[in-house]
């Protein structure tokens, strides 16, 4: 399975993602934002970081990068794309997934482990995964997911909510919402479910000695689903 991780000026989770993808069997290539063409890929990842210093709005500049035309074409042809953290912000700014990510409700940069409940397993990302709750890491200032009432209705009608912030037992409540996101939304799909945008970092949970292994579950399951 071939993957491509896009590096934007200011990306800083691109190499972690590279390590994670390779660990679970992807042949990964790092792609520079100024390139015009994506190599043949089964998966494209927009990594976390602070592309363009978060100028204007997080992800807004990166969403207009040269490589993004190719990424958008890849998306339209049904290619799998994951945007993590800043990558999620780039996805919303590109219009590839609905909504926006606002400043965290309490104006704090949040860096901690969280639990997320998988809301929809009818897709390449979570199909066949045994767990319903995963422990991932978040580190962001603008992760407060927001959309209009009409968009929210559409997202829910199409079952586009991928994961919600919850507690260890999977209870989705206000008190487990770290950043003020509507309905505790931590990640969403596009309508066709080939694109997944999420604030939590699965690539930070792939080593039991450093963190946890729920990221390993995610990547192992993903590559098995793609085979």
């Amino acid at each position, binding site marked *: 399975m071939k993957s491509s991780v896009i590096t934007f000026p200011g990306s800083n989770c691109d190499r972690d993602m590279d390590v994670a993808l390779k660990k679970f069997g992807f042949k990964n290539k790092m792609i520079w934002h100024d390139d015009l063409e994506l190599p043949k890929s089964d998966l494209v990842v927009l990594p976390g970081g602070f592309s363009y210093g978060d100028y204007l709005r997080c992800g807004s500049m990166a969403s207009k990068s040269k490589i993004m035309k190719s990424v958008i074409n890849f998306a339209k042809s049904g290619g799998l794309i994951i945007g993590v953290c800043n990558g999620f912000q780039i996805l919303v700014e590109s219009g590839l997934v609905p909504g926006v990510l606002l*400043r965290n*409700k309490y*104006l704090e940069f949040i860096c901690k482990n969280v639990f997320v409940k998988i809301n929809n397993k009818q897709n390449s990302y979570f199909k066949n995964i045994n767990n319903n709750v995963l422990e991932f890491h978040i580190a962001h200032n603008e992760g407060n997911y927001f959309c209009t009432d009409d968009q929210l209705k559409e997202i829910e009608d199409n079952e586009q909510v991928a994961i919600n912030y919850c507690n260890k037992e999977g209870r989705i409540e206000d008190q487990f919402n770290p950043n003020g996101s509507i309905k505790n939304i931590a990640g969403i799909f596009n309508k066709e479910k080939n694109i997944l945008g999420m604030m939590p970092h699965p690539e930070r949970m792939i080593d039991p000695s450093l963190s946890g292994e729920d990221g390993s579950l995610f990547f192992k399951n993903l590559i098995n689903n793609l085979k």
Partner: protein
Amino acid sequence: MKVSVIITLKKDVLDPQGKVIHQTLDGMGYKDIEEVRQGKYFEIYTKENDLKKAKDKVEEMCKKLLANLVIENYKIIDVQ
């Protein structure tokens, strides 16, 4: 030609920074404030000499990049 644009958050979008500024002003003794909303202001200098064309181009820029229309409104306040 200079085109001036302001971008503001839509009414129902939470503005935590505006809220904190409001609280701080309140703490400084400005007790009559009902609400503070923070926005952005741009000055765009263009070679275009036609007033309408310049305005239309900047409007396009607002839609494509300067504003995110899910949460923000833009207003061209001056062209000169």
